[in-house]
């Protein structure tokens, strides 16, 4: 099935998607998950997950709650390392160098410096709007005033928030509305120029209008950024994602071009889920 605007090279990663991963063809991938197992203590939450993340595209992870989609997302930037007793087995390869970011010898902070994350609930820091967006730059040792100013403005523009906050950059971020706070968190994530952006149900705490704005925003970021988004909202996944992965009970059940998953899934379990028979 041809996607308009995809080169032949990209095609290999898409149809059939999983074959591309298995064949290790040099596809335009930003990352790929290979046979990933994850354990919370003795409890195995991910079971041999395979997933390609195509450069410049939006990949959505869907599935019933408890299926492991958030767990998988939090593997990419090693958030699980913040809590004791968690264990990874397998690989998440980050391209172009091809390092395995879940390898024990890789510092989790290295993964987080390259991969940004937006959380389910807007979580601005109790600081000014400006300070929030500049946080990622400060953390990377970038303190040059004009450079930080420039990047803060650019990130706020990209997050479609600049016009709303340009006159209140020094005010507390807590004064913004929920939707603005979430776009602020997206700007905060964009400012240090991440290679991959993880979004963990970013609209689940927002009203429909704020949700629409975020979806619009993701559409604009497509191409410039590679995005992985977890969502429990199938309409949202269908609207915004290029590729969709359906997970169930820690397994990657099906991965394909979004339009195919939602119109003609191969797996019976996927079909049941998208037709609303469980979840």
């Amino acid at each position, binding site marked *: 099935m041809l996607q308009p605007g995809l080169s032949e090279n990209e095609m290999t990663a898409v149809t059939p998607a999983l074959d591309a991963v298995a064949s290790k063809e040099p596809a335009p991938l930003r990352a790929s998950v290979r046979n990933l197992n994850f354990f919370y203590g003795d409890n195995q939450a991910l079971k041999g997950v395979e997933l390609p993340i195509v450069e410049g595209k939006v990949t959505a992870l869907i599935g019933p709650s408890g299926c492991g989609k958030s767990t998988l997302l939090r593997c990419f930037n090693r958030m699980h390392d*913040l809590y004791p007793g968690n264990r990874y087995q397998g690989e998440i390869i980050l391209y172009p160098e091809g390092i395995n970011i879940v390898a024990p010898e890789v510092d989790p902070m290295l993964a987080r410096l390259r991969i*940004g994350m937006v*959380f389910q609930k807007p*979580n601005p*820091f109790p*600081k000014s709007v400006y300070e929030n967006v500049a946080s990622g730059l*400060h*953390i*990377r040792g970038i303190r040059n005033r004009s450079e930080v100013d420039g990047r803060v403005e650019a990130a706020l523009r990209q997050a479609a928030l600049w016009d709303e906050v340009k006159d209140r950059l020094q005010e507390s971020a807590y004064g913004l509305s929920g939707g603005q706070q979430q776009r602020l968190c997206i700007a905060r994530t964009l400012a*240090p120029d991440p290679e991959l952006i993880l979004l963990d149900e970013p609209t689940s705490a927002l009203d429909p209008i704020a949700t629409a704005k975020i979806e619009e925003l993701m559409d604009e970021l497509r191409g410039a950024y590679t995005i992985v988004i977890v969502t429990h909202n199938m309409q949202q996944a269908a609207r915004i994602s290029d590729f969709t992965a359906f997970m169930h009970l820690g397994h990657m059940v099906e991965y394909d071009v979004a339009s195919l998953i939602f119109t003609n899934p191969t797996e019976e379990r996927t079909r049941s889920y998208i037709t609303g028979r469980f979840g």
Partner: protein
Amino acid sequence: MKPLAAQPSRRLSDAEIVARAHRSDRNFAILGLSVLVISMIVLLSLIVDFMVDGLGRIDLDFLTSFPSRRASEAGILSAWVGTTLVMLVTTALAVPLGVAAGLYLEEYAPRNWITHLIEINVTNLAGVPSIIYGLLALGLFVQSLAMGQTILVAGITLALLILPIIIVATREAVRSIPLEIREGAYALGADKWQTVSGYILPTARPGILTGAIVGMSRAIGETAPIITIGALTFIAFLPPSPVQDTFPFINFNWLNSPFTVMPIQMFNWVSRPQAAFHVNAAATGLILLLMTLLMNAIAIWLRYKIRRSMR
């Protein structure tokens, strides 16, 4: 209505049971409130007592005179200067150390026996009588280390005394910070110290400030440990000034100066038999009381503000 005990055989109606329940609950509520009112009356009468006895004695001369053999000429100049300088040392030591220890226990400490030991230890230190800290200072600083009965020794002693208060306040403030702030900082690539210093500490600052104020108000009124280190009670001079007009403009000679503090001065005067000195004691006590009450009020107000902003 007749007393219920007079009709033991009759079964009570539901309405009667409910009425009785309401009555017993109301009686208890009245009891609780009266205990409260009595304790408030005690606090109030204490304040009024100090005002009646001491307010008339407070004037500019009282604040700018040294203690004297004649009660009417005596003042608290050396005492309030001493209190200020001792509190400077105490705050400078106790706040950074207490905050650092609290951050370690809450953010860094692995679950092992060392951590457990430190935690039990802090709990226990909080319950050690203040006079024991005085004996520690006497045996260790004054005798073994021969540091003398100085502002520095008093400052260190009071700092150790209020350390547990600041540690506990820091831990509580840090613990109440939502997980999302922490995860947000880590997700941006921050390391532990960046997260703690850049995001956790600033968020916890009001709570820590509350603890620091409570600790300082405790230290300002502490008398026993300062008596124990043998601080003189008759000091008719001031420590060397911390600022000077020649380079480098500040000096630390005052740290090694003998001193007195307001509670010591007050204790000294209250221990005298003459009523005229009791008036001086009341005046000193009133100032001390107002200072500590004000500090506690600020701390309470801060805590109230934090609680509201958390919602």
